């Protein structure tokens, strides 16, 4: 059974994609993107998920909010099994779990202004809100990510990468989630902007008591933000624990290889 202090508990999660190729589009062995992994995310903490491209880290994040199909395994939100829920039954949990994506250039609709980007989740999850209340809430959201209120009427192309990522964060915060899955939130940003966004995420966590699943490939960033870290390789979690001890004294050969490849100065 999941422990109540864990906001999210993942048990034996697998995501396999069917694979077809060759003559007559024959069925091959399925691609095991995520293969029997288990972990938990305690409330108010940050769990870092690191691994290289193709390791299954993003698929894990997406499977939790049903953007990837679950092959087997269970996902608990506190004590409720949410892995099997679909459609309308999953809606209340989608409000509690939000996601921030890697590429701020592709994850915002270029034809919507900031007001409609931020109010769309509000229309779905808070249908009783009036237009004026929604606009007021959007202004507050911009303030919480340290952007001026007059940005509401602007479009995504008018912003820099760092500003777009802030808008992506504001959109995730709109429905007052408890858990945010951050999928490579700072990988596409310059180092100075990366530092600002990481600090913002940490401030928001303190103010709002948020819980993060922080997916990234930059070991130093993950070490900085995480309370616990999971190392993924080829669909499996190969090592888990306190970030400092995992990264200073790695036990698994894959973690060792990953660490030795980081150029230090």
């Amino acid at each position, binding site marked *: 059974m999941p422990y109540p202090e864990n906001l999210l508990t993942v048990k034996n999660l697998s995501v396999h994609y069917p694979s077809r190729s060759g003559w007559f589009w024959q069925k091959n062995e399925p691609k095991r993107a995520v293969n029997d992994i288990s972990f938990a995310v305690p409330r108010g903490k940050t769990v870092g998920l690191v691994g*290289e*491209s193709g390791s299954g880290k993003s698929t894990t994040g997406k499977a939790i909010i049903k953007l990837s199909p679950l092959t087997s395994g269970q996902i608990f939100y506190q004590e409720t099994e949410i892995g099997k829920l679909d459609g309308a039954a999953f809606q209340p949990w989608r409000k509690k779990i939000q996601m921030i994506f890697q590429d701020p250039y592709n994850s915002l609709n270029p034809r919507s202004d900031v007001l409609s980007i931020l109010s769309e989740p509000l229309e779905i999850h808070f249908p009783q809100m009036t237009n004026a209340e929604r606009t007021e809430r959007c202004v507050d959201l911009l303030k919480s990510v340290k952007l001026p209120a007059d940005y509401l009427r602007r479009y995504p192309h008018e912003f820099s*990468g760092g500003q777009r990522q802030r808008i992506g964060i504001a959109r995730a915060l709109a429905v007052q989630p408890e858990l945010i899955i951050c999928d490579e939130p700072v990988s596409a940003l*310059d*180092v*100075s*902007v*990366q*530092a*600002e966004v*990481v*600090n913002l995420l*940490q401030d928001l966590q303190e103010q709002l008591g948020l819980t993060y699943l922080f997916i990234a*490939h*930059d*070991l*130093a*960033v993950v*070490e*900085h933000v995480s309370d616990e870290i999971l190392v993924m390789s080829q669909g499996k979690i190969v090592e888990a624990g306190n*970030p*400092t001890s995992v*990264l*200073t004294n790695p036990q698994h050969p894959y973690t060792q*290889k*990953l*660490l*030795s*490849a*980081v*150029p*230090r*100065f």
Partner: protein
Amino acid sequence: MPSEPLLHVENLSITFSSHGRTTQAVKSISFSVGTGEVLAVVGESGSGKSVSALSLTRLLPSPPLCDIQGSILWRGRDLQKITEDQLTQIRGKEIAYIFQDPGTSLNPVYTIGYQIAEAVKIHEPTIKDIDAVVHQSLHDVLIDDPHKVAQQYPHELSGGMQQRAMIAMALACNPKLLVADEPTTALDVTIQKEIIDLLKRLRQQRKMSILLITHNFGIVAHFADRVQVMRQGEIVESGETTTVMQNPAHPYTRGLIACIPRLGQRRRRLTTLSEEIKT
């Protein structure tokens, strides 16, 4: 420093114009690259590091869209003043490029072998056995099965293999200067290490100069002889890599280095750049 620089750029300014607005991307910068030297150019996006590298061999739009001032001396000749035909002899042959995203820089409808052969045919028309050159260049970038890879299309290769193929293409004509524009930014750290180790080895074997454009100070520290830091079209600091990294003189360089989270040095908050340092 070698006595005669291979490349000497003097007072280079690049201005883009569109819809009646002009933007000065590079503001009168001067730098040189010696024979066999690795010069790293670091800076944030929009600092002008890529456009200054592209301007060397007229890879930017032609006037009136883009105006380039200053002199680009390549082995004593001003590349600004020579004809397009003469420049074709240098671009790709003496100065070769590799880019950030091998997936979009390679042509998806031709095989790797065809794309390498194309460069060899243009620059070395006297060579008869082009296949041998293609296979040798793939072999030089540590591809185990050059015959197979030569017949494959870009989408059949992983990111790391694509980048190797692009390096093989750039090196097939034995360039004297390789311009590497963020060669490992799109790659995983383990692949990044393999590519950087490969470039180090090739540089030693061929006594080739490298102009490395990056924003990763870790790579700079392990690879470059000298480094120059760019901000908003200007070079704010340049010098020997160890000096700049250990004793950065300019506040912008210090700020940029301080922003980077480092393994094993956990801090409560990351340092950020103040607005006045950024501009």
